[in-house]
């Protein structure tokens, strides 16, 4: 086979979702035996691009050439067979099996079904041990750390002669020492003729490990260049943010409102000693990377996760249970809409009142007329696009589903509304509608907490911005004209 300079060539790749073009005519090359980093903000199209390469999504149009040949996998297995392995954030190892069994899973040599110990196994083990000697082949994977499990997966990919290994945020859940080790492994892989596509939000890592970097923004390819030609983080951040004109944030008239929520020394498995206040009518934003602890703060306040520390709402200590939080006047729009927010097999009418069934009931009996009325009211008020209130929630578009979840929370008559990634997977039109609803609520005196990994969203809406990194509160910034978005990115990507 002729060895091409580029191991992967992406040409005019397009991926459309209903209402959104997630990947917009992207073309770039990935050179053989390099570490190619992919950066961009959330929603920039990185993960969609990766999912096309791994066969999880089908492209709308465009071509990809692997080693000069057309490459269009239909599922991750096919991608793996063609030489592209992926280290997903959700690790694909079987905890109950041993390291050796995991390495050979799906590639066993057998005689009449009996497993045979062949040179292949020894080779795989030696590949693994060359990467990481401390992992023993007879160990059960459940006894390994996240980093060690990653190593098992990497070893499997390396031993199966993968041309390309895609690593999706591999450092999100591992320690500093383990990261150093991972980088050594990546260097070694490159020497062994493997190309690594490396996705991370942590820009320092990009500089440390990368040869090339591709920046994406709003589904478009911005630039691909050698990292040696990138001056510093600031230049990279500029490319990522671009000249995005933030929708103008309008500061509120300063009236000292009373404090509604007091969080003191909040800590748990993810969070480290977090304290802050939220005032009535205030919109506060929590910004940080994936895994920075945003969702965990929301869930702790809501009583869905355990925590240490003290949370006072309207001066009273909150009992840690969702039903208690709702009764006290707090509502949460969860991060995972379909699995945590919505009852997809039920109708819109059945979804809207669930957080406050008492309001439409007397003595435990639901008033159907009231139920229909309030559903109609919210469909109208939030402009939920549907032909009937009796439509199953699963049949709505992402934006409309999110509006149903929002309606649920609004109907709970909460004084404090927490929104976790409120516009993820929502089209542009619905997005701006959701923003105007949030502003309206704040004018009405409700307190809003927004947890988002989209900076424009935070800059656009919030009066106060909290920056999170690795479960700690790194900075508090009052929003205004002088807020420096580059400085913000610098902080949440781990800069001092």
């Amino acid at each position, binding site marked *: 086979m002729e060895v091409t300079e580029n191991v992967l060539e992406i040409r005019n790749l397009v991926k459309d979702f209903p209402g959104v073009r997630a990947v917009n005519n992207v073309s770039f090359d990935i050179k053989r035996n390099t570490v190619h980093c992919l950066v961009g903000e959330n929603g920039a199209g990185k993960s969609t691009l990766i999912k096309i390469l791994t066969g999880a999504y089908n492209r709308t149009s465009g071509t990809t050439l692997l080693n000069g040949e057309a490459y269009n996998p239909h599922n991750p297995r096919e991608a793996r067979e063609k030489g592209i392995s992926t280290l997903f954030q959700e690790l694909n190892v079987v905890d109950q099996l041993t390291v050796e069994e995991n390495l050979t899973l799906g590639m066993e040599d057998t005689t009449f079904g009996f497993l045979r110990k062949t040179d292949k196994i020894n080779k795989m083990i030696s590949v693994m041990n060359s990467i990481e000697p401390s992992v023993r082949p007879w160990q059960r994977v459940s006894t390994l750390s996240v980093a060690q499990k990653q190593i098992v997966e990497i070893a499997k990919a390396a031993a199966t002669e993968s041309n390309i290994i895609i690593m999706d945020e591999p450092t999100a859940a591992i320690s500093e020492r383990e990261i150093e080790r991972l980088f050594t492994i990546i260097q070694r892989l490159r020497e062994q003729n493997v190309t690594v596509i490396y996705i991370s939000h942590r820009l320092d890592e990009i500089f440390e490990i990368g040869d090339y970097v591709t920046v994406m923004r709003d589904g478009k390819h911005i630039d691909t260049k050698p990292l040696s030609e990138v001056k510093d983080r600031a230049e990279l951040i500029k490319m990522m943010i671009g000249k995005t004109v933030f929708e103008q944030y309008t500061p509120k008239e300063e009236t000292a409102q009373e404090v509604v929520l007091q969080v003191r020394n909040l800590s748990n498995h993810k969070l480290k000693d977090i304290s802050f206040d939220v005032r009535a009518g205030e919109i506060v934003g929590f910004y940080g990377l994936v895994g920075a602890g945003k969702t965990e703060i929301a869930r702790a306040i809501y009583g869905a996760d355990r925590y240490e520390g003290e949370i006072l709402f309207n001066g009273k200590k909150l009992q840690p249970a969702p039903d208690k939080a709702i009764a006290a006047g707090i509502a949460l729009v969860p991060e995972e809409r379909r699995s945590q927010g919505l009852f997809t*097999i039920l109708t819109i009418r059945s979804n809207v009142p669930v957080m406050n069934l008492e309001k439409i009931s007397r003595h435990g009996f639901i008033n159907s007329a009231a139920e229909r009325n309030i559903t109609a009211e919210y469909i109208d008020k939030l402009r939920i696009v549907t032909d009937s209130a009796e439509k199953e929630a699963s049949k709505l578009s992402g934006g409309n589903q999110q509006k149903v979840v929002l309606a649920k929370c609004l109907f709970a008559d909460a004084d404090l509304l927490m929104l976790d990634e409120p516009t993820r997977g929502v089209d542009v039109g619905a997005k701006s509608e959701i923003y105007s609803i949030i502003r309206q609520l704040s004018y009405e005196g409700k307190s809003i907490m927004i947890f988002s990994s989209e900076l424009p969203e935070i800059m656009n809406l919030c009066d106060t911005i909290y920056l999170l990194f690795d479960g700690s509160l790194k900075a508090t910034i009052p929003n205004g004209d002088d807020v420096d978005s580059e400085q913000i990115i610098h902080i949440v990507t781990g800069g001092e």
Partner: protein
Amino acid sequence: MGIIKQVSRKPSFGDHMSNESFITLLMIGVLFVLFSIAAIFVPNFYQPQNMLNLITNNWFIVIIGIGVTFLLITGNFDLSVGGVIALTGVLAVYFSQTANASQNELANGLGLPYGVAVVLALLGAMSIGALNAFFVVRLKVPSIIVTLGTMMFARGIAQVITQGAQRNTSLPSEFGLVGNLALPGTSIKLSVLIMLILLVIAFIFERRTAAGRRTYLIGANADAARLSGVKVGRHLTVLFIISALLAGITGILLASEFKAGVSSRALGYEFDALVVTLLGGVSIMGGFGSVLGMLVGALILSVVTSAATGLLLSPDWQFTLKAIAVFIAIMAQGFALSRRKS
């Protein structure tokens, strides 16, 4: 605010019907077809008395079917109902048998007044429900395993109390009353009336109450239900206890009807209860089904078994017929729903 009006297409028939109603209607259609076929082939099938029997004969399955339906909607099984029926009946008899009546151990009870005996027996039933809930909610053991265990546990207690047989002597005369009482001027038993009342209550619970709605929420998405403020564990506990209570009521009525506490009473009823809920379109995937559907399922089962008897098929046919009916029902419902969605 400028409202973007969607161009709405003209609603066609059934568009606004829920999937539950759709399946219930479908099964009513099946019931009608099956009944017609049976009426053609089986002599005297359409006689009023026979038709009445179709509705009244399975009253005990319908009563326990109510509890089983609600639990199935939340995604849980209750296979303990048959055992609970036997246990409650035996307990009621044992409690109300005269104390020290004779040498025969099985004739000696506790000599409690009938009312007290019934209440205590029902408490016994409910404690089995509480046991189910404890294992499912607190220990997170799958309901299928737990209720298989309590099925034997409950029946086992009944067998121990009756020494593996039954207790039927030295009972007060009022013991046989409720189970044999007929409505004035008819042959319809009080038990059937109780079934109807419980059905109406269950129907209202399902359609009209907040608690009924929460049952569906838990089945549709337990995580989302918890985050929406539903006390999932407490709700399931109450449902398990209600299911056991309904089985207990059935047990009291059957014990009264036969004036005996029989340890082998209601063998396999848990399976019949499951069969009628499945025939009625209740889905173990959760969040889907209705009491009305279960009733239709019970009627279908009635028609099938009664037609089989009418055609002089041996009673041995019942297991096979039930199995085939459930398979066809599951496949047909799945097919109909997928066609409706597309």
